[in-house]
């Protein structure tokens, strides 16, 4: 009985072990490239001309838009992982969406705060219940809820399955939320809906934006791989501790 258990554990670990080996090799390159892109992106961001309408504040766009883009991409990654958990029962998928949730929350937070700091000089207020802002805020709450759910459960594989269900339900729900918020806002505030994005983007702004978006995306993947690795280690520590407890009982 202990034998078959050991064998199952072993095959479960096979994939993560391979993942750890690959991560070990890929991570330095990813991190290095990410730093380079950030250096390039930041130089571009501060050397390009300001917008004639928005002045310097347009530079906020170079962090705000990539962060907002990542907040959505991260959720898509999590939804994919959730599918992996529920359909293919891939052990790495469990770990992947659990590790991504704090990252998504952090990037969403950056998007919210920078958006707010952009909104104050442009609109004269920190926050409006504009459809897009509201949706991002709801996304933020969903990330936090997922983190709380993961923390509240002891058994990692059960937590992974339950939160996978929640992620997928959330994913399906996103268009509905978006639609209803749109409808709600235009219903109440037909005239003064403030559109973000402003003027059509000219190549002068596009270049730093693209570089920064790339840099952020790479940063996300670097951190995601690191977080997955941490989570794998955390689970190994847990299994080994349980084993140590069993062995201590047998030893005496």
């Amino acid at each position, binding site marked *: 009985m202990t034998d078959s258990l050991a064998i199952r554990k072993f095959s479960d670990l096979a994939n993560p072990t391979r993942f750890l080996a690959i991560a070990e090799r890929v991570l330095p390159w990813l991190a290095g490239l990410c730093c380079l892109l950030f250096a390039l992106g930041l130089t571009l961001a501060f050397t390009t001309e300001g917008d004639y309408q928005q002045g310097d*504040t347009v530079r*906020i766009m170079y962090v705000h838009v990539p962060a907002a883009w990542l907040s959505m991409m991260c959720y898509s990654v999590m939804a994919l992982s959730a599918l992996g958990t529920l359909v293919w029962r891939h052990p790495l998928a469990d770990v992947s969406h659990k590790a991504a949730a704090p990252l998504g929350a*952090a990037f969403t*937070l*950056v998007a919210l705060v920078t958006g707010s700091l952009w909104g104050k*000089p442009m609109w004269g207020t920190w926050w409006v219940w504009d459809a897009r802002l509201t949706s991002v805020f709801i996304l933020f709450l969903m990330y936090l809820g997922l983190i709380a759910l993961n923390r509240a459960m002891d058994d990692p594989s059960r937590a992974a399955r339950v939160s996978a269900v929640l992620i997928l339900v959330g994913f399906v729900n996103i268009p509905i939320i978006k639609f209803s918020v749109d409808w709600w806002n235009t219903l109440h505030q037909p005239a003064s809906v403030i559109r973000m994005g402003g003027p059509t983007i000219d190549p002068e702004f596009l270049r730093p934006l693209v570089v920064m978006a790339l840099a952020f995306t790479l940063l996300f993947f670097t*951190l995601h791989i690191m977080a997955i690795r941490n989570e794998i280690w955390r689970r*190994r520590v847990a299994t080994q501790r349980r084993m*140590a407890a069993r062995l201590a009982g047998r030893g005496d």
Partner: protein
Amino acid sequence: MTHAFYVLASYAVAALVIFGLVIWTFADGRARRRELAELEAAGLRRRSAAAPSGKSTS
């Protein structure tokens, strides 16, 4: 307040959050690695004495 203030503030906040995230991830990884090393150190002794059924975690 000038526009530069908002620009700097938003970059500062973004940098703060991202650095926080990076440092947290690093610290978490180091702590886990240390725990594994500790278990390994405690486990090797015990495993050689008690049970040969060990799995390699390197």
